């Protein structure tokens, strides 16, 4: 019950008008910054850290939470409208959301991303608060074998889910792993495939790969093959989600909410 009381006290503090205003300002600022490729939530918070010296502590924590969630969401806007994901998390949004935008349903895509973000973010925060102590106990028991199995699971799902040919899926997966090999090995510190270039020691940034694959490739393909294609305006038919959109979105939000909280480690192949 102690945790529950603490959670309620937290909500009571957060719900004061001034703090809600800080959350709003943080969300707006975070979304604006999150739209830029390469500036993820963590970087956005780090850049705006100096503001804590001007604001009281609770308000600045709320402000930062707003920035963090705003930046997490901001990446989805460019993914949906421009097919240019700003960070890892919004790559899947680019795959599905951009298709929706191209068929005139950008409004619905942006809406489902926003509402899904809100629902999953809110529920996940409560879940994490309630279960963090026990989950933390479990998490420290996970060792290298468990992480290895998680990676194997991730690889099999990637090659099975993406595309129709598992052979081409596997090829793409291992080309990606090969790119991930460039740089300093995280365990031994040995340089791999750097060719003596200091810049490559950091590895190849995921943002570079994402922008290259989604944005640059799109332009090159348009120049190569789609110049003569009759252009059509993808008319934005409506901004609101239909009953069918809601029906299709709710299960996806719930799945995301369930999968999100355990917090899969963002580890790189090493």
């Amino acid at each position, binding site marked *: 019950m102690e945790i529950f009381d603490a959670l309620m006290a937290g909500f009571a503090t957060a719900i004061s008008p001034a703090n809600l205003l800080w959350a709003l300002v943080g969300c707006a600022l975070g979304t604006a910054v999150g739209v830029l490729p390469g500036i993820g939530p963590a970087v956005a918070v780090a850049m705006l850290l100096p503001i804590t010296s001007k604001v009281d502590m609770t308000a600045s924590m709320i402000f930062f939470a707003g920035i963090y969630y705003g930046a997490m969401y901001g990446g989805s806007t460019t993914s949906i409208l421009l097919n240019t994901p700003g960070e890892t998390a919004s790559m899947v949004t680019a795959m599905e959301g951009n298709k929706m935008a191209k068929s005139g349903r950008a409004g619905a895509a942006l809406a489902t991303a926003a509402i899904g973000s809100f629902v999953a973010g809110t529920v996940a925060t409560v879940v994490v608060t309630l279960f963090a102590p026990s989950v933390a106990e479990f998490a420290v028991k996970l060792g290298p074998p468990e992480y290895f199995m998680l990676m194997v699971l991730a690889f099999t799902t990637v090659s099975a889910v993406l595309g129709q040919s598992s*052979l081409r899926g596997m*090829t793409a997966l*291992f080309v990606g792993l090969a790119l991930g090999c460039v740089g300093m090995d995280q*365990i*031994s510190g040995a340089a791999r495939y750097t060719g003596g270039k200091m810049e490559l020691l950091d590895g190849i940034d995921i943002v570079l790969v994402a922008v290259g694959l989604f944005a640059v490739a799109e332009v090159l393909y348009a120049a*190569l*093959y789609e*110049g003569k294609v009759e252009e059509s305006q993808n008319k934005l038919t409506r901004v609101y989600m239909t009953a069918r959109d809601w029906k299709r979105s709710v299960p996806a939000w719930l799945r995301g909410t369930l999968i999100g909280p355990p917090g899969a480690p963002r580890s790189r192949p090493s």
Partner: protein
Amino acid sequence: MSELAPSSDPAAADAGSVPSPFWQAAVGAAVVLVAAGMAFGALKIPGDAGYGGVGPNFLPWVCAAVLGLCGVLLIREALTGGYRQAADPGGAPRAALGPFAWVTAGLLLNAALIVELGFILGCTLCYALAVQGLRRANGQTGRLAPRALAVDVLTGLAISAPVFWLFTQFLAINLPGLTDTGWL
């Protein structure tokens, strides 16, 4: 990549812009080449296994082996009736290499000159060249007319300058500039 290369086989024109088996096999060969490159590079990586049991050259070798296998299988698929379940990517059956060259030149020049020219001018140059390419792809005339050029350059400036100022002035992130003022 070679997957985007034009299909020289007239029979392949029926299949939309899916590349001909020759180019599909070329993609497989490229994958084999990447695998060979990985293996060659892996020779130079130390293999001392620490407490982890595998050394830093383990994953590169795995990648090289799997990519080599995938490349061979891709070539086999290409030679025995083409890729399975190849979806038509849409677009024209033949690639327009001229526009492609313009867009690529824009990208490469931007990458090569951004440190000297600065972000704004570099990106404007990239934009102007890429738009030239896309105008050519579209078959537009009067592409190099002074008015069209001026519109392109001004649009490029109008896009890149605010982005540059947002980074340098608002977020205090250093981007390469022509001057050290943070405004150009």
